[in-house]
């Protein structure tokens, strides 16, 4: 018996008939179609994405039974403003870069709106307190807080610079994101928001065991659950039960007789008419398991008599680099540091959970809409599972609530495609947060043993490095982790001898895969901390030491070849030197004057180089078209999961053509309409796909100019492009509309669509040997940390980050990426840790909140690239690398003892403080 509940929603009276104990969140989204309000956790109050205002007060709509709102006023993001009439907060969020993926944005806006209604002049502290319950994984919070300050100032009537942003030049100006008005008004439809009334619902039967043999699967009871239509097991896979194109040993569904290798391994798919029925069906599937001994520690998995988790044994992959004679170099050193560093499993913790929507498109293709880094790759991985040709499968990238590598895993696309294949109907799935933690790939935990030598005068000599990476149950795109571990692990330094070996080892922990920086942050952390130990041993200076040992631009590196692009490491270190010195001096003074307090201030420095080189063939294509309506259309595959790639592509095209952004339409990341870029990582999109886009629009401009010059009777070189027309010279009277040019091209039979290719094959003929082209970016960061030596609590008060980004296409977005990476790195340094069997979700996996945020200063060191579009380089991932080691170096220096395991929890810091003799 439903109840009738009447309330005011965004200023209008509404009445719903429903179960009054359902959450307001569900009723808003499902019954009232207001999908701007998001769900980021399992209705447990842990994320804040669902925040709405109830009588002007911010509440968690996931904890509010709808019966409670009877007779009251509810305001959601849709009611705050609309794209044509943005609320000052929405406008400020758009202009300051407070929105990356936008998934936290509605909740942030509502919390901010409540604050400003109570307090028109909030202090920074008051803003932080108002927002501390809203998690954001992308921005690092700084820009959100700046946006609230800006909106508050404007609402008080104080004049403040109004967003001239939209008029700025396409490149180098701080441009608004292409789809920003939709994002800040809750109009953007992420997968879960897309209406598909008849869609079936899918849930997954997952292993509760770390390691077990599947003896039998009985689906009978599940099929008797009302609403359950089908249960799919491995036996229902028409093609190959494998996603080996991505993960060499991973099944889609573990078959009877096979083994589950981790908690969360998928055994069956239940498809039903409602999510509840699907869930009940999952509970009713009976799987008989025979438990097997489980291995969680890679050292144990390497033991000679260890149970093999995969048939070929427990080593997934190895990589080694030998350069010079490391032993001799170490033997000839005045000082040798020999230490072991450890890192933990980390979770991406995007605020959007994994979700997919599958259907059969108008051309009969099995189509899946789901977050991805390269839809073509997902299509190619999935087609063999269905026994189909890639052309019979389509993958589309929707607006996505963050990735950080997580969305490279094709499993969800494969499972959804399989369900659509069998049901011939649309099917949707959304993970629970718990499921996302259990089943999604993690960052590899590393054990890194470093043996580093140096001469008395501070010159590095030899490096011996052993890395063991825990890849968990599966490859999961982690095959090249040892390669990345070593390349990052030697750094941008000149070594006389290197002996490095890394291996990726199976355990029954969660599968480890792609995560921001792919295998590099862990070894860079260990390297930069080890170097700091050496620097302290020698009494040297962290900046000078690194400068003295930095690789020069054209020298052959310890990898055996020179780098392909400008390497700004020296410039970065020079840029950060004064900041380091100032903070270091201030910390000394603080520790002197506060000698009797438990607080100690530490300052740490760390550097990095990060390879954004391309895997496979160094050739990328994109297309550009002149539409019949006279607009330019760019077709490329550069998925944007929040980092702003789509905006960058439009900027590059606009700048190249000399038109405004409004004249460009972007078609992005859809296998049916765009070319394969084979560029699956954010940091590579600008350089590689952007390079192809620039070439495509350049070619298109030539074709357009040639046709227009005939029409205007002038030489092609005299042609000037405007947004909607083409002129002869600067003469507006001698012009034709672009739509007319398009019509003329049609008439002449000229193709209006051209392809542009960035092709560096000539430059890298033996790319096969190198696997990745040697493109690197560099950076360095200084962290200032306050440590309480009696409780072990640490607070990062300040981070200064200097990064060589080449020429910044969108400086504000570049800074936003760096801030987000720093706060994510801070999480890894101090609080984040996924413990198998313990961690369940946001309630016990601690990501930074607004309160954790340090003051961040970003210095963009623009050392133009030789070959990137307008001098750009790759950026998205690299800035996470120096953060953790800078913070850990700061803490270790503050407490007088080394911390060699992250996260540096208060417990570990307190233990170090005691070792350091501070207590």
């Amino acid at each position, binding site marked *: 018996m439903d109840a009738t509940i009447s309330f005011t929603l965004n200023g209008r009276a509404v009445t719903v008939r429903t179960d009054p*104990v359902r959450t307001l969140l569900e009723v808003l989204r499902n019954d009232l179609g207001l999908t701007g309000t998001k769900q980021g956790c399992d209705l447990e109050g842990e994320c804040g994405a669902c925040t709405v205002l109830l009588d002007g007060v911010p509440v968690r709509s996931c904890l509010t039974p709808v019966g409670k709102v009877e007779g009251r006023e509810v305001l959601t993001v849709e009611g705050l403003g609309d794209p044509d009439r943005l609320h000052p907060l929405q406008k400020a969020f758009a202009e300051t870069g407070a929105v990356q993926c936008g998934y936290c944005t509605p909740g942030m806006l509502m919390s901010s709106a409540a604050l400003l209604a109570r307090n028109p002049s909030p202090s920074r502290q008051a803003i932080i307190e108002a927002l501390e319950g809203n998690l954001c994984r992308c921005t690092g919070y700084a820009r959100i807080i700046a946006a609230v300050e800006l909106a508050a100032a404007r609402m008080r009537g104080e004049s403040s610079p109004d967003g001239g942003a939209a008029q700025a030049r396409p490149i180098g100006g701080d441009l608004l994101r292409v789809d920003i008005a939709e994002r800040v008004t809750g109009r953007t439809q992420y997968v879960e928001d897309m209406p598909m009334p008849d869609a079936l619902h899918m849930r997954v039967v997952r292993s509760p065991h770390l390691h077990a043999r599947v003896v039998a699967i009985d689906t009978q009871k599940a099929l008797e659950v009302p609403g359950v239509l089908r249960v799919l097991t491995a036996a229902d896979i028409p093609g190959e039960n494998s996603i080996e194109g991505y993960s060499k040993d991973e099944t889609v569904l573990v078959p009877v007789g096979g083994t589950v290798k981790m908690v969360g391994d998928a055994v069956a798919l239940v498809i039903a008419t409602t999510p509840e029925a699907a869930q009940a069906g999952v509970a009713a599937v009976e799987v008989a398991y025979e438990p097997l001994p489980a291995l969680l520690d890679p050292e144990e998995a390497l033991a000679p008599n260890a149970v093999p988790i995969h048939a070929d044994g427990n080593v997934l992959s190895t990589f080694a680099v030998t350069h010079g004679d490391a032993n001799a170099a170490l033997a000839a050193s005045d000082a040798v540091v020999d230490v072991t560093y450890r890192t933990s499993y980390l979770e991406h913790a995007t605020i959007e959970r994994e979700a997919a929507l599958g259907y059969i498109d108008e051309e009969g293709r099995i189509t899946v809409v789901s977050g991805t880094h390269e839809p073509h790759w997902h299509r190619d991985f999935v087609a063999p599972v269905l026994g189909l040709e890639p052309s019979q499968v389509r993958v589309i990238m929707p607006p996505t609530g963050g990735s950080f590598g997580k969305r490279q895993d094709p499993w969800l696309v494969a499972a959804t495609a399989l369900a659509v294949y069998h049901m011939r109907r649309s099917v949707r799935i959304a993970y629970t947060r718990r499921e996302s933690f259990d089943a999604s790939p993690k960052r590899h935990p590393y054990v890194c043993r470093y043996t580093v030598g140096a001469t008395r005068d501070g010159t590095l000599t030899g490096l011996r490095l052993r890395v063991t990476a825990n890849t968990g149950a599966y490859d999961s795109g982690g095959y090249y982790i040892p390669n990345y571990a070593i390349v990052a692990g030697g750094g941008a330094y000149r070594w006389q001898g290197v002996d490095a070996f890394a291996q990726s080892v199976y355990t029954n922990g969660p599968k480890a895969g792609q995560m921001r920086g792919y295998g590099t942050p862990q070894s860079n952390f260990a390297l930069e901390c080890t170097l700091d130990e050496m620097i302290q041993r020698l009494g040297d200076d962290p900046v000078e030491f690194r400068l003295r040992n930095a690789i020069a631009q054209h020298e052959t590196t310890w990898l055996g070849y020179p780098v392909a692009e400008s390497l700004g490491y020296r410039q970065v270190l020079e840029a950060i030197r004064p900041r380091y010195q100032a903070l270091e001096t201030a910390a000394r003074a603080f520790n002197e004057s506060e000698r009797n307090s438990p607080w100690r201030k530490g300052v740490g420095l760390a550097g990095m180089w990060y390879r954004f080189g391309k895997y496979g063939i160094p050739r990328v294509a994109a297309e550009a078209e002149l539409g019949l309506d006279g607009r330019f259309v760019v077709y490329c595959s550069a998925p944007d999961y929040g980092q702003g790639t789509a905006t960058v592509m439009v900027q590059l095209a606009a700048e190249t053509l000399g038109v405004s952004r409004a004249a460009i339409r972007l078609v992005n990341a859809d296998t049916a309409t765009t070319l394969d870029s084979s560029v699956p990582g954010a940091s590579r999109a600008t350089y590689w796909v952007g390079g192809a886009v620039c070439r495509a629009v350049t070619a298109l401009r030539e074709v357009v100019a040639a046709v227009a010059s005939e029409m205007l009777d002038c030489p092609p070189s005299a042609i000037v492009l405007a947004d909607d027309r083409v002129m002869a010279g600067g003469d507006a009277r001698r012009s034709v509309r672009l739509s007319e040019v398009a019509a003329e091209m049609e008439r002449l039979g000229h193709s209006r669509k051209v392809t542009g290719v960035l092709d560096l094959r000539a430059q890298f003929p033996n790319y096969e040997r190198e696997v990745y082209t040697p493109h690197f970016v560099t950076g360095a960061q200084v962290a200032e940390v306050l440590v309480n030596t009696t409780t072990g609590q640490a607070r990062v008060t300040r981070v200064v980050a200097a990064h060589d980004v080449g020429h910044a296409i969108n400086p504000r977005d570049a800074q936003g990426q760096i801030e987000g990476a720093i706060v994510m790195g801070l999480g890894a340094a101090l609080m984040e840790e996924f413990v198998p069997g313990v961690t369940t979700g946001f309630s016990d996996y*601690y990501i930074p909140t607004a309160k954790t945020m340090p003051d961040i200063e970003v210095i963009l060191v623009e050392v133009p690239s030789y070959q990137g579009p307008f001098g750009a380089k790759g950026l998205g991932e690299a800035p996470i690398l120096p953060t953790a080691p800078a913070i850990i170096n700061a803490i270790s220096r503050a407490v007088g003892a080394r911390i060699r395991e992250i996260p540096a929890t208060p417990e570990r810091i307190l233990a170090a403080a005691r070792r350091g003799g501070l207590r």
Partner: protein
Amino acid sequence: MTHYRIAASVEDALKILEEHGGEARIMAGGTDVMVDMHKGKIAPRCLVDITRIPELRAISVVGEAVQVGAAVSLAEIHRHPFIAQNVHVLAEAARSVGALPIQTAATWAGNIVQAMPAADGAIAALALQAEARIVDATGARWKPVEMLFVRPGVSAVDPCRQIITHIRFRVPSRLWGSAWARAGRRESLVLPTLNCGVSLRLHEDGTIAEAVIALGPVAPTPYRARDAEAFLRGKTPDAAAFAEAGCIITGDCNPRTSPARASREYRLALIPEMVTQALEAATRRAENRRSQS
């Protein structure tokens, strides 16, 4: 389906409870009840929303006591000028529960009935020696909050038959101060590794007349450090006395290791630091109040 009833008065709420014979449940903000229902821990047939009962919506001074209605949200508590300026232990504990959009709905009484060993509101209530007014079919009575905890998650108040209508504590006296200390794995939106509430009353000569110290989670239920309190009585409030109090507590209580938060050893190491920190702050405030009056 679960019914949802918005009670108009305490009598009305009691009547609904009675009608359902123990299968209806009192709910205020719902921030715990909803989570427990989703997890299948509870399955009431009816939720009785008490947040619109006018008499439960106020913070008032009644005689010698500050009385907080059961429908007052934690946000209303920590924003209340008198409490924010005079009852730090309560204001800061209220500000520690989850985050603001939870504090706007959650209530002090609800936090206490949840009976978790480190419930911030429960620890603050102990430090204030607060009492709860419990009403059921047999009548109304005041009971010390300290008596309401049976074991982790189990309260002596049965929300299916009883209602806490108010919580009260003594109006702060002249030489009185309170403080709150809390440690967690991050600075907000996190359960405590350790929380500690204290209140302190001084004699005119500056020695301690009465100290009340509460901690969580160091025992199965919210913990009151009676031995340390007794030790402090009559002592000068200085570092040595506080350190000794910390030692007494460390020796007496029994924290557990929780893998996602902290080890037993770390909690034990933290106790003296946090107790000292809280006692120092409370002393400072008590002395300030003397100089102000």
